[in-house]
């Protein structure tokens, strides 16, 4: 084993090198999170001017709030559907690109472009794309008036949100999964072909098991990201509506905190959301992570 000292003779150099990054992480992630946990035990004045320690009162209040639970359920539904689609669709595209089906080379480039688009921009674009009067579904509305109405139908609004999220998630997941598929040795396909497995069977018996590490990575990232990154989309497409149908927890926290000035409530919900995401990720590692490690 090579010790670190062969790479860095000066023990302060490595610390110095990671310092800028650590500073950013601490300043913009750990401090606010710590702050949120801290505030969740206090009742904060909306316009500043002192706070009062209330113990677990905030938690009791939030957990008995029906709207919190509704937003929580919506978050989970969004998380499960949006992230599975955001992995499944790139997976299908990656398998196709790996097979070198027609047009896969231009498609490979085109598919990566959404990576360069900010969440809010995706939201603005999709608000247009799914607009009931000028969007791609407008002809459907002409034939069956009122069938597509994200402005008044909560389900339609939710679907719009999921579509926008999945679209934004395609590039990264596509690249990771394609890299995984291409790292499978050619002889592995040949061996499976000799064993009598057709192309479809090979996908399930050879390719998918061998890209489990990549699938796992994309799934973990998607699960955590779908919880938080939906904010930009909600804020630009639906504003949480109609009737709160697309108010996910992140958006509710923002509204409670910055529109309703319920800083303590928002902090408490942030803390709960944070714990939920941590538990979820830990569970994924425990139940999936350790079963997919094998030497190639």
């Amino acid at each position, binding site marked *: 084993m090579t010790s670190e000292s062969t790479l860095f003779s000066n023990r302060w150099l490595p610390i110095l090198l990671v310092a800028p990054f650590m500073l950013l992480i601490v300043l913009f992630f750990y401090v606010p999170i710590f702050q949120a946990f801290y505030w969740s035990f206090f009742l904060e004045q909306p316009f500043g001017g002192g706070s009062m320690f209330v113990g677990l009162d905030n938690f009791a209040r939030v957990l008995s709030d029906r709207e919190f639970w509704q937003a929580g359920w919506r978050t989970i539904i969004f998380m499960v559907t949006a992230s599975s689609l955001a992995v499944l669709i790139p997976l299908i595209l990656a398998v196709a690109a790996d097979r070198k089906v027609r047009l896969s080379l231009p498609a490979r480039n085109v598919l990566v472009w959404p990576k360069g688009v900010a969440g809010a921009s995706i939201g603005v674009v999709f608000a247009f794309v799914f607009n009931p009067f000028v969007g791609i579904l407008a002809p459907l509305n002409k034939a069956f008036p009122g069938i597509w109405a994200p402005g008044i139908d909560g389900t339609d609004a939710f679907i719009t949100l999921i579509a926008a999220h999945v679209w934004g998630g395609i590039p990264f997941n596509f690249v990771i999964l394609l890299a995984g598929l291409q790292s499978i*040795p050619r*002889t*592995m396909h*040949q*061996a*499976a*072909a*000799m*064993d*009598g*497995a*057709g192309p479809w*069977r090979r996908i399930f*018996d*050879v390719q998918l*098991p*061998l890209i*489990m590490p990549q699938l796992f990575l994309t799934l973990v990232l998607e699960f955590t990201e779908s919880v938080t990154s939906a904010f930009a989309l909600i804020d630009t497409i639906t504003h949480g509506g109609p009737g709160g149908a697309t108010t996910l927890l992140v958006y509710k926290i923002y509204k409670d905190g910055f529109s309703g000035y319920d800083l303590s409530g928002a902090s408490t919900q942030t803390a709960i959301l944070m714990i939920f995401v941590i538990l979820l990720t830990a569970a994924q590692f425990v139940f999936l992570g350790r079963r997919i490690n*094998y*030497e*190639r």
Partner: protein
Amino acid sequence: MNAIDTAIRAAAASITVKGLTKAYDPQTVVIPPMDVELKAGEFTVVLGPSGCGKSTLLQMIAGLERVSGGKILIGAREVQDLEPKHRGCAMVFQNYALYPHMSVFENMAYSLKVAGMAKAERAERVAAVAKMLGLADYLHRKPGQLSGGQRQRVAIGRAIVREPAVLLFDEPLSNLDAQLRHDMRVELADLHRRIGATTVFVTHDQVEAMTLADRIMILNKGRIEQFDTPKAIYHHPASVFVAKFIGAPPMNILPVTGDGSALRLADGQVVANAPLTGAYQLGIRPEDIVVDGKADGHAVKAALRFREDLGSHSVLAADLGGSIVRVATPFGADIADRLELLLNFPTSRLHLFDVATGRAIPGAFGAQ
């Protein structure tokens, strides 16, 4: 002999290749039209330098590579347009290509599972093959937990468990270390003796070819230079290419000129009597040259350049009329520090080749 052995022996089929070609485009012809027949149950080694088309040939038989023209018959069946799974071939890959996520048992049983065989029967078959290959204790392990030799055996087991008509090997030993390669070679020879499957074995290692093959097919730029038994290939090479490719050190090839009664080296020394005129290439194996001794041929003078002592024998390199001649002598022969050697070329051991085509001219020195 158990059930698996009998079944494979029964399934063994001949391979007939008719006008088979492979070209990626008109300029890059990998294999010009080839005709050859491999007998049922025969162990054929395809030998050649890298890029000679030997792996391409194997992959075309297996169905992993499309043919550009011609036919491949396994038994009486035309297979060149069939999917690999319908050809009845099994293959062992150079890097083994075991499925890393499956246990040894699952690796071996996979083809049977795909074929829809009942679970109990699968287990029985795998158990029989595992026993034969000494893998019975490792069935639950993953390939990553096995040594190189064990992985190799699993790959072989995976191939023979299907009782294939044809067993294909693509340089299966080249990833092993020298000792293991030797052991596996012996095991493979033994396995073939027991199961008698029609085998095509691709390698660039002449030792593997000489020791394993019933017949060796030597490929050069996609053409068959010679297809014969190891003995015939060694003692009667059909061309300069074969002569130089087989043997360690390889056969000496010297330019000679015939003056109507004798063959002379570049420096004028006579090496053999023959009623020939014109330029030829003369071949002689290093171990056939007699140093200082009497033999039935002509003796020529050569300058000793260097010697390598290999324990079992020594190899001398001598300058003979501008060409280097290698001579294998018994170890410790008393030739130390001599600058000049007298080399006797026994006429019965000489080979003559055409300069332009490189093909052997049989019977140039009487019956051989």
